[in-house]
């Protein structure tokens, strides 16, 4: 299988001198094309830090991240921007939205940066909002949304540019189980049918178990990296379908 991201000796130290804090220590990791990877661990263990480094949103103190086999620190700015704009999708733990802009404006930001025309970007952004059940809120200001709604806007924004890799930090953290399942469905559907590589940070074991691979992080180090066997993976998707059916039924009964 094709390596899409590779990390070697990744170390991240925050702060200076007496405030020094080592958030990641010598991490080695390879992620392959089309994988779905869960990064799990206790709060403060360094999951988000790792994800940010892999997504090239931050620079490691030591070590190297390779994208398609190329040293990311040596990428030209143009290529880096193209990568972020066209191939990556991000869902941040803290959402990060332009709170005074409308929901639609927020979702279409990546498309605007990609120089898509007004009509096209509006259409694509509306489609993405429909998938997360928020088409009714497109003209609302982002600041006026509930936590779960904000999270769904961020997911819409992460998928709107049809990315090859989605980095999602706690994508279901603020959602009730039914809405959460819906989002999970969306992500795994992209993974299965479009070959999108998923890197999901979560402390929800159920969500982690749906992934093909679970990386456990503790105190800035990887303590286990297990590939879920094919059959259990199969089982997981069966369970997912069952779960979906249950949700539908529950909704109908309401």
């Amino acid at each position, binding site marked *: 299988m094709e390596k899409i991201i590779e990390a070697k000796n990744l170390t991240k130290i925050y702060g200076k001198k007496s405030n020094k804090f080592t958030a990641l220590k010598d991490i080695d990791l390879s992620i392959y094309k089309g994988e779905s990877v869960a990064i799990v661990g206790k709060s403060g263990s360094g999951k988000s830090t790792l994800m940010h480094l892999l997504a090239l949103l931050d620079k490691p103190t030591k070590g190297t991240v390779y994208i398609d086999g190329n040293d990311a620190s040596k990428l030209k700015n143009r290529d880096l921007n193209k990568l*972020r704009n066209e191939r990556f999708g991000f869902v941040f733990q*803290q959402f990060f939205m332009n709170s005074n802009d409308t929901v639609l404006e927020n979702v279409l930001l990546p498309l605007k940066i990609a120089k898509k025309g007004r009509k096209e970007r509006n259409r694509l952004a509306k489609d993405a909002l429909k998938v997360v059940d928020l088409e009714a809120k497109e003209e609302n200001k982002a600041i006026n949304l509930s936590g779960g709604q904000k999270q769904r806007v961020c997911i819409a924004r992460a998928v709107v540019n049809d990315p090859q890799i989605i980095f999602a930090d706690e994508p279901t953290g603020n959602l009730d189980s039914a809405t959460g399942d819906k989002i999970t469905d969306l992500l795994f559907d992209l993974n299965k049918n479009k070959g999108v590589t998923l890197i999901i940070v979560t402390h929800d074991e159920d969500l982690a178990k749906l992934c093909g691979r679970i990386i456990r992080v503790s105190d800035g180090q990887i303590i286990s990296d297990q590939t879920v066997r094919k059959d259990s993976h199969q089982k997981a998707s069966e369970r997912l379908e069952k779960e979906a059916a249950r949700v539908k039924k529950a909704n109908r009964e309401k």
Partner: protein
Amino acid sequence: MKTSDLIKQSNHNLFRNKARTILTILAIFIGSFAICTTTAIQTGVNSFIDSQVASFGGEGFIQAYGKTETDTSQAIQDMQIGRPKKYNDGNTNEMGQPAITEEQIEQFRNIPGIIKDTVLVGRFGTVTYVQSTKNNERFTTQLNQMTTKTVHYDMVAGTNIDNNTDEYQVLLPNDLWVESLGYGSSEEAIGQKLDFVWSDPVTAELKHFPATIVGVQAPSVLNSAAVLINTPLNDALYAENVKYLPATEKGKVFTVAAEYDYEKYSADEIKKAISDIGLEGMTVADIIGQIKGFFDAITTIFTAFGFIALIAASIGIVNTLLMSVQERTREIGLMKTFGMSKIKIFFSFALEATLLGFWGAIAGLTVSFLLCTGVDNVAHTSDGFLKAFPTMHLAEFSPAVFIPVVLTIMAIAFIAGVLPATKASKKNPIDALRYE
């Protein structure tokens, strides 16, 4: 991001923090207003002078004086502070210019390029009074002479005087003269006689020189209110004026004037030739230059004040943008996360600054325009201060002037915006996103 989107976004961002934006625009507005107003007044005055000059003609007119020891501005200053002047046997005038000799007049006449039959020698006739043949009113006045080949006054009625005729002719300086002499209109005055009267200082006999009114001038900054007479009339009056003077005093001349062939000779060539015979030449352009120089000096000072106001405004722009960058660091983080280039982020802020400059400049220009137009209208009402000059506009707003002004202000704003923009574009995405 597309350029059009970039511009829209920057403009939109400006109106996020309205109070701050408006204060900054106000600061720029003051600078812009000051500069626009002064340059418009400068243009207005200059174009008025230009139009006056164009109607005056005089491309080939040149005047010559005796060369002074002290420079002219020193002489004017001395005159103003009242410094007593040395007596020089009557051989210098009140400007300190020495008398021109007969030999020099002859040399002047023979300078290649000088048109001989236009030469006017500065022996100026005077009158005791002039009397209307219509209502018999008497007036005192100074008399002027002028060459007539290229010099043509802006006329309300009639024609220019003719120096090469035997008839005595006169040109009235304005409508007030027409009225005072008892005529209903300028047209009515044309062809009528104005009597020039000289009272002989010895016999007290009144000598009459009736002259034909050939034309009436439009008011202009270039003619004094003196009536303009032709050479024959002047010479006749002068002969009477100096009748009793000893021969040595009769011919004292301090200025000569003529027209030269300006198509073949440059002003500098003629001035050089005049300088060679010990005189100093001055063309119409030089005279105009002095008038313009005076206005330019004043408006330049105002423009300088405008620029000082603008510099203060640019500090305001830097401040606004620095705060705006801080406020929007997260937004910058998002833009970087989704692959917006540093250059574009830089431009979005620089553009914001330029737009601030643009709106401030436009506001200053608009208010300046409205105010100047208003004042100009008031000035031209029946008791306004410009009523005598209907063709003069206080300020003129030509695109050739205000476009550079607006662009300059935008450029200053752009430069002022570069600093915060550079700072904004250098952030690491996640650092920018985490910024509180």
